């Protein structure tokens, strides 16, 4: 490309230097030039490209008002008509990753503008939107910004050099997009397959040409037939804990889950419970933790005989940035305990 590539950068309220969770509900706004991580990207790109505008949107706003948010972002993109959109990096921030992906889907499907972003592989935004952007792999927290920016810049530079015609994921340094591209191979398929097999048999490295997708689905359990005789338990990833968080469950990347007795609890209040979650504005949940873990309503339903019984313990962790492997392990232990206590159904709430 002979002229400077024009980039629009999408970031959230935090990296946009507007505020933390208390500002997560702001609608999209547009600023001139680069802001926050955009400055580092801009500097590294030198004369090849320039961030001309930055779109800042609150993570909660984007996820709760996706249609309105994308509509507004679309207007800006139409006005500016950039050559490329850069989104994030969003690391393992779930809502931010979903927003970057949402912007990528809009840009890709409706406007034909390519998108480069950066996510931790377990960010749900990657799996949902991998077709729509080139996602560079990042670490799971913003502490990895120093690696994420150069990796994204490298990809942007390659994008400029190749006029947008990027090579394979492994060569270019982005995560697979689940898109198949035709190419000519030097050797025919039968030979490649046999070579692969021989390598496999002799314990040598080999690379599959078609990794099997990982469909880890669980079949739905049979429904409850008689709710009035059923023991129901509450579980949450929303971080509700007894006041002062006695087990010190971390506000992000939780290393544990909590099991708390509610035998004598009929209503969660600001006096007895709170949230430990650091990934959303905690004001509403702290004022009335029933807003995340509906103990009050469950007690009413128990009293009225609509459910058989509310289990006298609830289980809780913080879903914010917690690795899939950990969440899986916690839930396996929790399920075992619930089954041991005769629980027959579970309501799991997430923020």
């Amino acid at each position, binding site marked *: 490309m002979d002229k400077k590539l024009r980039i629009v950068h999408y970031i959230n309220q935090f990296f946009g230097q507007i505020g933390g*969770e208390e500002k*997560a509900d702001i609608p999209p706004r547009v600023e001139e030039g680069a802001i926050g991580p955009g400055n580092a990207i801009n500097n590294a790109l030198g004369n090849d490209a320039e961030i001309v505008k930055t779109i800042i949107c609150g993570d*909660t706003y984007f*996820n*709760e008002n996706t249609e309105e948010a994308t509509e507004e972002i679309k207007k800006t993109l139409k006005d500016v008509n950039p050559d490329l959109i850069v989104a994030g990096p969003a690391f393992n921030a*779930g809502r931010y990753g*979903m927003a970057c992906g949402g912007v990528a889907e809009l840009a890709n499907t409706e406007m034909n503008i390519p998108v480069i972003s950066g996510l931790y592989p377990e960010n*749900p935004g990657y*799996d*949902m939107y991998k077709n729509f952007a080139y996602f560079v792999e990042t670490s799971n927290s913003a502490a990895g910004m120093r690696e994420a920016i150069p990796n994204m810049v490298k990809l942007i530079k390659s994008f400029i050099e190749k006029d947008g015609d990027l090579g394979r994921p492994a060569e270019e340094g982005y995560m697979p997009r689940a898109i198949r591209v035709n190419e000519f191979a030097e050797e025919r398929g039968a030979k490649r397959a046999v070579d692969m097999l021989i390598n496999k048999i002799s314990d040598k490295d080999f690379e599959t040409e078609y990794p099997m997708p990982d469909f*880890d*689905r*669980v*079949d*739905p*359990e*049979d*429904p*409850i*037939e008689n*709710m009035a005789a059923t023991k*129901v338990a509450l*579980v949450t*990833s929303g971080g509700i804990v007894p006041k002062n968080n006695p087990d010190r469950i971390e506000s992000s990347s939780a290393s544990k889950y909590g099991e708390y007795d509610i035998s004598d609890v009929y209503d969660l209040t600001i006096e007895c419970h709170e949230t430990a979650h650091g990934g*959303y*504005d*905690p*004001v*509403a*949940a702290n*004022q*009335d933790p*029933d*807003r*995340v*873990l*509906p103990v*009050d*309503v469950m007690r*009413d*339903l128990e009293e009225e005989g*609509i459910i058989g019984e509310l289990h006298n313990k609830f289980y809780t962790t913080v879903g914010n940035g917690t690795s899939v492997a950990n*969440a*899986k392990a*916690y*839930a*396996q232990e*929790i*399920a*075992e305990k*619930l*089954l041991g206590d005769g*629980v*027959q*159904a*579970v*309501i*799991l*709430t*997430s923020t």
Partner: protein
Amino acid sequence: MVKEIERAGLPVVHVATVVPISKTVGANRIVPAIAIPHPLGNPDLDKGKEKKVRRKIVEKALKALETDIEEQTVFEDE
């Protein structure tokens, strides 16, 4: 988490605000919630009304647990 609980043999309903995430993580019974910071409440309502809203969601969750499904199902407002 929801998937592991179901895998262990317990019917489970996921009350979640960001339904696409719930789908991605493999929940089978999904009930949409109100907002990320207050999935089962709304600080703008008075206490009584708010509790009614919460109860409606919980009732919907119970109904989801009583419904026979073959695949991922989002229990939207009727």
